[in-house]
Structure formats: C-alpha cells, structure tokens
C-alpha cells in the first residue's frame, strides 16, 4: 500500500495544509481544558466572576477557530483524497489501455475491471479516513503530552507507564487480529466465488444432480467464514474493554498521584482537571489508530492488486525509429513465424510462411487449437512473434507504429463487441469522419441496412452497453460494417459469420466480394463452403501449415483438408 502513496506526491500542498490545519485544530482541542483549568484555579478560587466570563468567551473563540480549521482541513483532505483517486484511476486506465492482449489474458478482463473501479474506490476511501482520523491522532497525542508536561512534568511520568501498556495491548491485539481480518477477506471472496459458480452453472448443476454437492460446498465456505468472523469479533470484543480499562485506571492513578501533588502544593485542582482531559485525549488518539484495523487489510488487498497492474509492463511497444513506408498496399507476408503464448509448453503456431496479396481472398481453416486465430492476431501486432517476421507492405510490423499499422486493417473479431452509442456511432468507430453516405454504404454491404431501417430511429437507434439490445447476428453485421467503413487495405475476418443465418451469410459474402476487389482479405473459417472459392486456402493442423492451395489442389494433395471436407459434406455434395 505504501508503494501506491507515491501518487500522493502531487497533492503535497493540500496535504501539508491538512497537517497544519489539523495541528491547529488539535491545539484548540487541547487549549480548551487549559482555559477551563484557569476558570477553576483563578476564577473559582478567587471568586472572580468577570474573569470566568472573559475566559469563557476566549474558550468560545478558540472552539470557533478549531471548527474553522477542521472545516478547512476537511476541504483540503477531500480534495487531496479524491484527487488522488482520480489520478490513480487515470494512471491505471492509461496503463491498461497500453496493454497488449497478452497482459489481458494474464490478468483476466473481469479482474482488470474490478481493479480499475472498486479497488481504487476502496483505496480512496482509506485515504480520506487517514487524512481525517489518522493525521489527527499523532498530533493529539504529541500535543497532549506537551500540554501535560507543561502543566506538571512530574505527574506526566504516569504516561511513561501507561502509554507502553496501551501500545502493547494494541500491538498484541493487532497482531492477532490483522491476519484474521485478512483471512476473512479471503473467505468472503471464496464464498462469493462459490455463489457465482452456482449461478452461472445452474443448469449443469441441476442436470448432473449436484445440488446437494454444491450446497455442501457453499455450506463449507459459509461455515468457514462464520467461524473466522466469530473468532475475530471475539478478539476485538477484548480490545475495547481493555483499552477503556487501561484509560480509566490511568485516570484513577492521575487522581491519586495528583492528589498527593496537590497536597504538597505543587499543583492546583484545575490543573488536575485539565490534566485528566489531556490524558483522555492522548489515549483516544491511540484508539483512533486502532480503528484502522478493519480498513487496512481490505485496502491493502486492493493496493496489491492495483500495484500488480501498474507493475506489469506492456510487452508490445512502438519501435523508436519506424521504417519508412514502401509503395506497396495491402501485402501481408509471414516468414517462418513461430509464436507461443507465455507459459505454454507447445507453440501455438510454428514455422508459418505464406503471402496474401491485394485482390485475393486468403482463407484459413483448421481444427480447434490449430492456431488460426493466433495467426491472424499477429497481423495487427496484438502479439509479437517469437521467431520469424510478419511483414505488412514489406515492412516488419515491429518497425511500424501500431497506430499506422492498424489504420491499414479492417478487423472483425470472433466476438462482435459493440459500444454504447447509436448505430451510426458504432459504425463510425471504424472511421471517425465517415460521411452518412459511407456509413449507409458499409451497412448495406454488411447486410445490416435492412434491420437498421426497421428500427424506429434508424441509424440513430441507441445501442445498449455490450450491445444487449440487438441480436447476435445483428451485432456481427454491425461489427462487419464497422470494419468496412474504413476502406482498409487489409480485411481480417475471424470466423465472423457464425451467428448469421445462411441466407444473410451468402448475400453478405457476395456483396463483400464486390467491395473488396482491391483489398487483401483474410478469412478464418470453420465451414468448407466459406473457403471454397478462396484464391488460396491455408490448412492449419496442430499449429503448423498442413497445406496451401485452392480447393481442388488441396483435395488431391492434403489429407487434413480432405478429412475436414469429408467430415462436413457427404460424398455426393463434394462431387
């Protein structure tokens, strides 16, 4: 958690202000008992009523000043803490936006979201509490000691005994309590996990008759959590009374020893009364520190998670010097490319070489895990190759800026992702300055114009978060339109027709053919019918190329291809 506080630095000025203001506020809190002592020792003892009124009004002024300081401190601490939250949030978001897919795979999208949102909110909360409470504690403590010593140095020796006792009590309880608080956090997470799995897998659980089993799993987690919670709360039940007892015993001691000092005429009664109040303030400041027990484990778990993200350096960065553009347009070439996912034992693709040229359709077909999607993810440089080179227009993609490289590509991912906004916003995502005409044209080719025009607001119809208000097929078509509006040199379709019904699919492919006459088209496909007319078909098998060629050639030369075709079609249809 301490590591994160480097981001507090820009706020040193308001925090300094908080410190100073809280200092004055503490002073005012501490000065009040002193004034009260004067009322007793001077006013009451001498029977001086005007003096009592005078000191009383001074006290009011001091209290007022204390309040103003405290309000101002609240102002600065709110600004500093929320400012810190804002900064940290922006830092994390910025950082994550630079991540390549590799880092996303590693952490998991859902986890990254939690880290950017809830975890930071959590930390911000703690900082606010710290600025409000924790800062005050040491000042009250030190100020209290100074005042106490100035009132009666000898009697202050009592603190030499009390403070270590109190500190030891806090320390002992904290040592037992904090690990338990941490354990509780873990157990809550576990319980939530079981619960979540129960919800997502409800059909499977019921169809496999595992309801009892899941109940037991839940009960185990529930019991575990309850058990630890009881333990923690019992330990904490110990803390408060102990602290109160120590404090109360100290005040008793102060009265006894104070009495002796008064008897010896080294102290006055009012001073003793003030002294008692100082003692209370000192000890309450220690209590405040112990309040942080509950918050810190929670926040430090969040802090660890955030730091993990910040410490993760994106693997893919732009080269310092980029190669000058060549005159080529739309050429894609793989030269002996191999790539393994980090931590994987076997490479996802090995020794891949091929070239895709403008005006041609290159189709990639192959089984699950054969490396099709991996292969095309290398073209927009979502991952970096381990061996070999990926060339676009004759330049290694690692020598181009990512921005420029990706600007050449119209990419349609396997899972169609849409964003909040209107339909035309979503299509314009591909080309910000696209005219209405261009948007409409792209939608028509993607076979989306029909359903868009049926919507009440047409192209201005809103898309909900995650595109939940359109069907899977409609999403896919909009995602295709988004790529088409770019007028890209290279189009990549990663199994992008799966949610389309066959009529739409064939119409779309026919329209696409017209549109992409001058572009390089790379299609990953599951279905033989999709690849049949391609200019070249690349057959992937267990991370290698098993064959390249046209349908007829491959039928004759490539066993893997023949197997795929046979699995999908009956004899008569192949003929």
């Amino acid at each position, binding site marked *: 958690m301490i590591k994160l506080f480097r981001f507090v630095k820009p706020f040193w000025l308001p925090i300094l202000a908080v410190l100073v203001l809280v200092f004055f506020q503490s002073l005012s809190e501490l000065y009040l008992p002193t004034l009260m002592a004067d009322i007793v020792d001077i006013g009451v003892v001498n029977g001086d009523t005007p003096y009592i009124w005078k000191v009383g009004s001074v006290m009011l002024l001091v209290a007022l000043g204390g309040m103003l300081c405290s309000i101002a401190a609240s102002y600065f601490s709110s600004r500093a803490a929320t400012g810190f939250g804002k900064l940290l949030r922006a830092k994390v978001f910025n950082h994550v936006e*630079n991540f390549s897919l590799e880092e996303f795979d590693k952490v998991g999208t859902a986890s990254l979201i939690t880290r950017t949102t809830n975890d930071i909110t959590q930390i911000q909360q703690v900082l606010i509490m710290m600025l409000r409470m924790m800062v005050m504690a040491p000042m009250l403590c030190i100020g209290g000691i100074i005042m106490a010593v100035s009132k009666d140095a000898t009697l202050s020796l009592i603190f030499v005994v009390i403070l270590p006792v109190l500190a030891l009590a806090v320390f002992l309880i904290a040592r037992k309590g904090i690990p338990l608080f941490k354990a509780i956090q873990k*157990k809550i997470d576990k319980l939530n996990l079981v619960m979540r799995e129960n919800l997502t897998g409800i059909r499977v659980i019921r169809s496999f008759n595992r309801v009892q089993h899941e109940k037991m799993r839940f009960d185990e987690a529930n019991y575990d959590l309850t058990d630890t919670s009881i333990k923690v709360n019992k330990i904490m039940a110990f803390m408060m009374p102990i602290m109160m007892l120590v404090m109360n015993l100290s005040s008793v001691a102060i009265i006894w020893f104070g009495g002796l000092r008064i008897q010896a005429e080294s102290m006055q009664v009012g001073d003793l009364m003030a002294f008692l109040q100082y003692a209370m303030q000192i000890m309450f400041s220690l209590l405040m520190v112990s309040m942080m027990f509950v918050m810190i484990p929670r926040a430090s778990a969040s802090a660890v998670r955030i730091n993990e993200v910040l410490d993760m350096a994106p693997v893919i960065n732009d080269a310092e010097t980029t190669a000058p553009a060549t005159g080529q347009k739309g050429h894609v070439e793989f030269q002996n490319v191999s790539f393994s996912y980090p931590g994987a034992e076997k490479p996802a693709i090995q020794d891949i070489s091929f070239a895709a040229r403008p005006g041609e359709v290159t189709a990639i077909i192959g089984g699950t895990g054969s490396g099709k999607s991996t292969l095309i993810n290398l073209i927009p440089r979502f991952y970096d190759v381990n061996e070999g080179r990926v060339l676009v227009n004759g330049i290694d993609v690692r020598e181009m800026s990512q921005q420029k490289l990706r600007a050449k590509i119209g990419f349609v991912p396997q899972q169609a992702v849409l964003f909040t906004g209107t339909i035309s916003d979503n299509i314009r995502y591909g080309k910000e300055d696209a005219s209405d005409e261009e948007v409409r044209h792209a939608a028509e080719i993607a076979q989306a114009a029909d359903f868009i025009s049926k919507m009440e607001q047409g192209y201005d119809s809103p898309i909900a978060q995650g595109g939940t208000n359109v*069907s899977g097929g409609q999403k896919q078509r909009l995602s295709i339109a988004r790529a088409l509006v770019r007028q890209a040199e290279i189009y990549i379709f990663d199994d992008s027709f799966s949610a389309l019904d066959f009529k739409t699919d064939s119409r779309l492919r026919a329209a696409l053919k017209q549109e992409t006459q001058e572009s390089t088209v790379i299609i990953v496909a*599951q279905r033989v019918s999709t690849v049949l007319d391609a200019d070249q078909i690349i057959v992937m098998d267990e991370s290698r190329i098993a064959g390249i060629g046209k349908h007829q050639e491959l039928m004759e030369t490539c066993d893997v291809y023949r197997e795929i075709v046979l699995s999908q079609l009956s004899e008569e249809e192949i003929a």
Partner: protein
Amino acid sequence: MSQSHNQSARKPGGFGGKGGRGHGGPGGHGGPGMGMPVEKAKDFKGTLKRLMTYMRPFRLQLGSVVLMAVLSTVFAILSPRVMGDATNVLFEGIMGKIQGVPGAAIDFDAIGRIILYLLGLYLLSSLFSYFQQYLMADVSQKTVYNLRKQVNDKLSRLPLKYYDARTHGEILSRVTNDMDNISSTLQQSMTQLISSVLTIIGVIVMMLSISPLMTLIAILTIPLSIAAITSIAKRSQQQFVRQQKELGLLNGHVEEMYTGHKVVKAFGREQQSLQQFSEINERLYEAGWKAQFISGVIMPIMSFIGNIGYVLVAVVGGILVLKERIKIGDVQAFIQYTRQLSQPIAQTANIANIIQSTVASSERVFEVMDEAEEIPDPANPVTIKDPQGEVSFNHVRFGYQDQAVLIEDMNIHASKGQTIAIVGPTGAGKTTLINLLMRFYEVNGGSITIDGVNITDMSRGDLRSLFGMVLQDTWLFNGTIRDNIAYGREGATEEEIIEAAKTAHADHFIRTLPDGYDTILNEEASNISQGQKQLLTIARAVLADPAILILDEATSSVDTRTEIYIQKAMNELMKGRTSFVIAHRLSTIKDADMILVMNQGSVIEQGTHDELLAQGGFYADLYNSQFSKGGFDLEVG
C-alpha cells in the same frame, strides 16, 4: 460491477464515550457514512420483525447481551460522578488550606475509598462490555450464517424461471453485499444502539441530579446539532447522488473499454477512449470531493456545538461553584457528561441510517426467500429401473408467459436409440425443448413421458440423471480438470476419468498442460481455450453414461478436424441411446430419424428429411435456397 460502491467505511464513533463500540463484522462496511443517501425499505416494520425472528433461537444470549449492555453502561455512567467526588474531596481540602482552616488537609482516606469504588465500577463496566461483545459475536455471526444458508437452500429450490429473469449480479449482490450489510449491523450497531440510548438517558439523569440549570444548557445544544446535521446532510446527499451517477458511468466505460480492448486496439481508438475516461473522471472528482467535503463538515460543526455546551457549562458551573450552589467536582463530572452526551447522539443518528439500510437489505434478501418455488417432487416418485430412453411428448402446450403460447399441442415420439435433429435459425428457441425435457420449466398442458412414465411422477434427480448434456454454454468451475470431469459422476475412478477424457479427445491437450489433470482452472477458466472447455464438458457427459443425450453440435467452439474425432466418439456414445441433437451438420440432419424444425420458439414442422422436402414448407425452403446459391452448407444454428 456497480453493485458495491456503498462501501464507505463506517465512521469511527469519534471521541469519548464509554459505551462498548464494536468492531466491524467481516465486511466492516455497509452502513452509509454520514450524509449519504439512505435506501428505504418498503415495509420497514414487517421486515424488521421478520429479521428479528432469525434471532429468536438466540433470545437467551440476546437477553444477556442486553443485560450486559445495560450494566456496562450504567457502571460507565456512574463513574464520572464518583470521580467528581474525589475531586470534591481534593478541592475541599485545598480550599480549607487556602482559607487557613486549622488542620485542613486532603482526606486521603476518603479518596482511597472513592478510588477503590471507582476501580470496581471500571472493572465491572469493562467486564460486562467484553461479555456483551463476546456473546454478540456468536449471535450475529450465527444468525447471518443461518440466513445465508437458508437463502442458498432457497436458491436451490427456485425454478430456472427465476434465474432466467434476472442477471447474476442482481442475485449475487443480495447474497453477498446485502448479507454483509446485515452481518456488520448485527455485530456492532445493535449493541451500539442499546448503549447509546441508555447512555443518553443515563447521562441526562445524572446531569439533572447535579444541576437542572446546567442540564438545560447542555440539552439546548441537542436540537441545534440535529438541525445542523439535517441541513448539511441534505446538501451532501445531492452530491453523493451525483457521485454515484458518475461512478456508474465511469465503471460502465471501463467495463466497455476493457471487454472491447481488442476492438479499441484494432481501430486505434485508444486516444478517444482515454479522453472520454478523463472527462468522466473529472466530473466524478468534482462530485466526489464536494460530497466528501460537505459530509466532512458535519463532524466539526457537531463538535463546535458540543464545545459551546462545554464552555457554557464551564462558565456557568464556575459561577455556580462560586455561589456555592454546587461543588467543583460536580462541574468536572458534568463536563465529562456533556462530552459523553454528544457522541451517542451523533451515533444514534448514524445508526438510524444504518438500520434503515440494513432493513432495506433484509427486505431484498427476504424477497428471494418469498419467491415461488419449484413444484416439489412427488412423495413416492416412480423410478425407472432399466431406462430405455423412449421419449414422448403428448399434446404438450407451453409458453414462457401465460399469454404467449409457444408450443401448442406438440406430439413427438422417439423410440429407443433414435436420433432427433432440431433445426432452425438462430434464436429459434431450441433451448425450450431442453428446458421441458429436463423439467427446468413445467409444461402448461399435456405431458412428457419417458419409458411411459410421466416426468412429473419422477424425482427431478432421477429424471435428470437419465440425460447427458453437451451444450454450447460450457460450465466449468474453479478446481482441477480432474474434478471438473468427475463432476459427471460421483465416485468415478481415475481410470474412468482418463478413459472419458480419451473418448472425448481431451486427454491429449490435458497432458500438454503444465499440471496435466491437476491443472487448476482459474475463475473465468480463461487458462484454456473455448474449444478445450467444450472437450472437457464432453468428457464429463461421457463419464456420466446417460440413457438419453442432448447435444449441441457446437460449431463455433469445437470444429473441423477435432470435431471429426468427437463426432466419432459421439456416434459411439449415441449408439443405443436416444439423442436430441441441435444439429448444424447436414449429414446429421439427413440421417436423423426425425427432424424438428423450429422457428421463433415453436416447432413448425416435423418429419424425416425426405418427408419434409416433399412437404415443401419452411424446411424445404431453407434447404433449397441454400442449393440454388450453389452452396451446400446448411448453416443453421
């Protein structure tokens, strides 16, 4: 994602006060901080009563907790008065000395007695407060344990209808966030409320016994502080609402950008995304600091009002002492009492909010408890000894909503070992059939029989064990691969598991993983590919060895070459079993004993391939339009 932003930590109670202040339950959060908007329950009284019934089994402990709280508070309230007596003795002694009364000295015997008395009071107060917290830990945590368990049991009895109508997040937040909220309230706020109210009453009584005039002054500050709090709270609530709104927007944006990361990258839209983020972030900051600031003002103002009381008491007290109406020690005790008074008042106001939000949470939890359950299994369920897998739909009528009937008078008969292909465009409602077969939903009319037994006469457990399912939405849980496969059958041996994995062609890839069968699938099972997940669920079905199969020829995950092997394994598995196949492959469809053509949720045609072609209906249209384009890939799904 936006369910848990009310996690503002509970405000530490401030200074002073000897009432037992508890510590956070497991959550340590839940109650809204000062000035935060509070959610209100629809039926406050009823829900509160009902929540209380959960504490019934602990009424003995609760009774003692209340008793302990009373005792500890009473002793705590008495002590300042006693301490004031000690001061009186000191003061009298010293005044005597000053006034030159002969033989005047401080009566240390009296002080010693008072101190012993005080020690006793403090010890007892601490002891009772300890036992009170100790007992409460058991009561509150066990209550929440029971509540959680009951909700979970209830969830397992709820029909699928309930789950399909709600998001996971919605259900989850009731079991977790709301439960957390209840837990921490029970742990700390209950006893706090008791001791706060007692303290207020006790302190006022003690103050009155010292000086009615000073009490009047001290009490006058109470309405002042209440007025101050409510007027500030109103303002801060507006800001909190704004903050909540911006936070929602920000979280939404983050969620969207992260899930669409690939698209953002592919289209080079990082800059726009960042810009939008920083705009929302800025607005969040504006609303956030204002909310924090305004709510942060409450405490200083409260304590200023408290200080006004303090000063007035000191001054008036001083004057009264002069007039010898009261003693100096009483002033000291009175000051301590005024300090003790302001804190429980603030606490009570805060607790009132916390209790409101807790009751609202309980209400949401109880809503789950009150949902209509599945029709219970028959008392004497029929069991099928040697299942053949003969399935009949007899005049089945069904609709998800009463007014929208999807299936009217459906009759299907599948004999043992037959294959029934289900065909239709996306979203045709093929899951409806599964929902009915597995009795996830009840039919509205007619009946479904297996081997002549009405499925409603069987226990759901027995019924479902007849089926094996391989669906597109794979479900794996956090655990080893071995456990995930073994899920298909309790007590499966290692050999059987590996055998099943081999049949499903999963053995190979499993062995390439670093830990083989012991590889732990992470929370989102993102450490294996979609296709591999599919293979694991197939292995699971293979291991379960059912009489009837339901499979989805899931083209988008497992495909082509791998699929050949799976197809072979499936064909093997389908032998002698009745199979319902959500078909994507022409060969499957053509070879099927019966094809059910579905569109928009209902079965519109049924028959064999040739029969349906001859009919010239929807299926024929589907099939022919594909041929006329020169293709042959009947891509239905």
